[in-house]
C-alpha cells in the first residue's frame, strides 16, 4: 500500500515489479492462511463476513497476479493495493469473525452458491471501481494537459471505460444470480418479513443503483459520471455492508 503511493506519485511509468512481488508475497501468505483455515474447518473457508471479505480480496489479488504477468499491465497493482488494504482493514472490524460453532454458517449448497455469487459480484464491482479510478486519474491528466497523461502506462480512457462497464455488467449479472438463489435458502425459525430485513432492502438498492448506472452508460452518459458512479457505489458497499449484515436477522440467526 505504502509502495503504491510512491507509484502514484511517479505516474505509473515503470513495470512496478517490486509492487508485483510484494503482492505475490502477500498472496502466498494469504493463500497459506486460507488453506490452513479451510483444513481446520474441513470445508471452503467462506463461512462468515470476515472470511468472505478476505475471499474477495484473494480473488482480486489472484486476478491481478494473473493479469500482471503481462508487464504492460503490471501497473494495475498500484490501484489494486489500496483497495486490498481497505478491504483488509474492513475485514478486521469487530464481530465479523465470531468463533465457529459446531457447524459453519453456510450450511447447504444453495447457501454456498448464494454467498459465492454475491461475493464474486462484489469482486467484479471492486475491480470495476479500480478501473474507474484509473479512468478518473487519466481523464483528469488529459483534461488539464499534464505530461504524465502520455507518459503513464495507463491504457486509453476509452478502453478503461469499456473495462469498467464490462466489470459492472458482470457484477450485476452475478449479483442478480446470487439474489435469485435467496428464495431457495433455508428459512430461519422466525423469519422476518422480507420488507423488514435490512439486507434485502440494501441488496435491492445496490442492484438498482448498478442497473441505473448501466442504463446511464448505455444511453451515452458514460465517461466521468459513470466512473464516479462506479467508484461511489463500491465505496457505498464497503462502508455499509458490514453494518447492514450485522443488522440482518436472516443472516445472523
Amino acid at each position, binding site marked *: 500500500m505504502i509502495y503504491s503511493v510512491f507509484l502514484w506519485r511517479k505516474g505509473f*511509468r515503470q513495470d512496478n515489479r517490486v509492487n508485483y512481488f510484494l503482492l505475490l508475497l502477500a498472496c502466498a501468505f494469504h493463500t497459506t492462511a486460507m488453506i490452513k483455515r479451510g483444513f481446520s474447518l474441513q470445508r471452503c473457508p467462506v463461512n462468515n463476513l470476515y472470511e468472505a471479505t478476505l475471499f474477495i480480496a484473494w480473488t482480486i489479488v489472484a486476478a491481478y497476479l494473473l493479469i500482471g504477468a503481462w508487464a504492460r499491465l503490471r501497473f494495475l497493482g498500484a490501484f489494486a493495493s489500496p483497495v486490498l488494504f481497505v478491504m483488509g482493514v474492513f475485514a478486521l472490524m469487530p464481530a465479523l469473525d465470531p468463533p465457529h460453532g459446531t457447524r459453519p454458517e453456510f450450511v447447504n449448497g444453495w447457501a454456498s452458491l448464494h454467498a459465492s455469487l454475491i461475493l464474486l459480484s462484489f469482486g467484479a464491482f471492486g475491480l470495476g471501481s479500480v478501473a474507474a479510478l484509473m479512468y478518473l486519474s*487519466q481523464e483528469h491528466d*488529459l*483534461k488539464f*494537459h499534464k*505530461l504524465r*497523461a*502520455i*507518459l503513464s502506462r*495507463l*491504457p*486509453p*480512457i*476509452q*478502453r478503461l471505460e*469499456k473495462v469498467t462497464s464490462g466489470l459492472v455488467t458482470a457484477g450485476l449479472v452475478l449479483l442478480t444470480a446470487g439474489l435469485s438463489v435467496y428464495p431457495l435458502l433455508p428459512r430461519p425459525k422466525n423469519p422476518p418479513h422480507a420488507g423488514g430485513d435490512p439486507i434485502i432492502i440494501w441488496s435491492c438498492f445496490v442492484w438498482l443503483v448498478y442497473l441505473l448506472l448501466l442504463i446511464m452508460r448505455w444511453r*451515452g*452518459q*458514460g*465517461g*466521468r*459520471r459513470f466512473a464516479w458512479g462506479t467508484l461511489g457505489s463500491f465505496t457505498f458497499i464497503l462502508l455499509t455492508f458490514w453494518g447492514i449484515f450485522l443488522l440482518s436477522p436472516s443472516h445472523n440467526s
Partner: protein
Amino acid sequence: MSILVIGLSHHSAPVTVRERFAFAEARIPATLQLLRDSGLASEGVILSTCNRVELYAVTSLPAKEAFPALKQFLVNCHDYRDPLTDELYLLVEPQSVEHLFKVACGLDSMVLGETEILGQLKQAYDLALQHRHSGARLNKAFQKAFNVAKHIRTETNIQRGSVSVGSVAVELAEKIFTTLNDRQVMVIGAGDTSEKTARALLSRGAHSIIVSNRSHDRAVELAAALGGRAVHFEDWAREFSKIDIVISSTSAPHYILDRVKLGPLMKLRRNRPLLLIDIAVPRDIDPEVNFLENVYLYNIDDLQAIADDYLKQRQEEISRCEQIIREKTRALLSPGPASFHSNRPAFGHE
C-alpha cells in the same frame, strides 16, 4: 586486439565535410575489404548516415600507429585534400565501445533519443556480417550494443515521447481512443502543420480524413493528397457526428467552435470522446469547450509545452543512460576474454 572508432558526426563536422566522407552503401563492402587487405584491421564496420560517418575497426596495431593510418585510409578513400582540424574523432577501448553503445541508444544523435539510428546501425552491421568483414569482437560488441539500446529504451525515458507537435497530437489520441484504426479525422483549414498532424494520424492507422477549408479548391487538393474527402466550409458541422479528432488551423479572427455550438453536437455524437487540436493563431476553438464532458482540447501552446517537456525529460535522462552504458561496457570488457581487455588510453579528438 582492440576496437577503435574513427569518424566524424554532426557534433564535429559541418555537412560540407560530412558529405565528402559519406559512403554509398554499395561501396562499403569493397572499402572494408581494402581495409582488411591493407593489414590495418582484421574486422571492420562502416556506419554512414546523414549525421555521421564512422569506421569501427579491430586492430592489433598500437593506437598511436593505427590512428594516423586509419585517418589516411579514410582521406584516401574519398580523395579528400582539404586540411582537417577537429573534424575527425578517434576513440580506443573502453571509450570506443561506450561510443558505440551511445550511438545505438540515440544519445549521440541530433534529436536526442531518436530510434532511427539503431536501424541504421543494424543495417551497417548486417552489411559487414554478410560480407564477413566483422568477426568475434565486433559481433559481440554490436550485439551487445543492440541489447543495451533495448535495455535503455525499456528502463529509461530517453526515447519516450515525441518532440514534434504532430507526434504529440498522435500520442494524445492514442491515450484517449482504444485504437486509431476506425477514427475519423476532420481537418478544418488546410495549413501546413494541420496537414503534417493529419499525416501523422493517418500513419498510425486513422480511418479517414475529411478536409474543410474556406477555399474549397485547396480543401479538395489536400483531401486528395491525404486520401480523404473535402466538404464545403459551411457544412463542416454537419459531419461532426462521425468525427473523433478535429485539427483546426483556419485564419478566422474569431472562434469557429464554442461551447454553445459544441454542446448539441456532442449529444449527436452520444458523448463519445472528442479530441480537438487547435493549432490556429488566433485560436479557432473557445477554451471553454474543454469544460464539456468527454471533450479534450489542446492548443498549439499546450502541444508545444508537452514537446518541450519531453525534450527536457530526455535531457534529464542522459546521466542515467550514461551510467548504464558505463556499467554495460565494463561488464563487456572486464570479465570477458583477454582480447576484449585493453588498458590503452583514449586519444579523444584528434
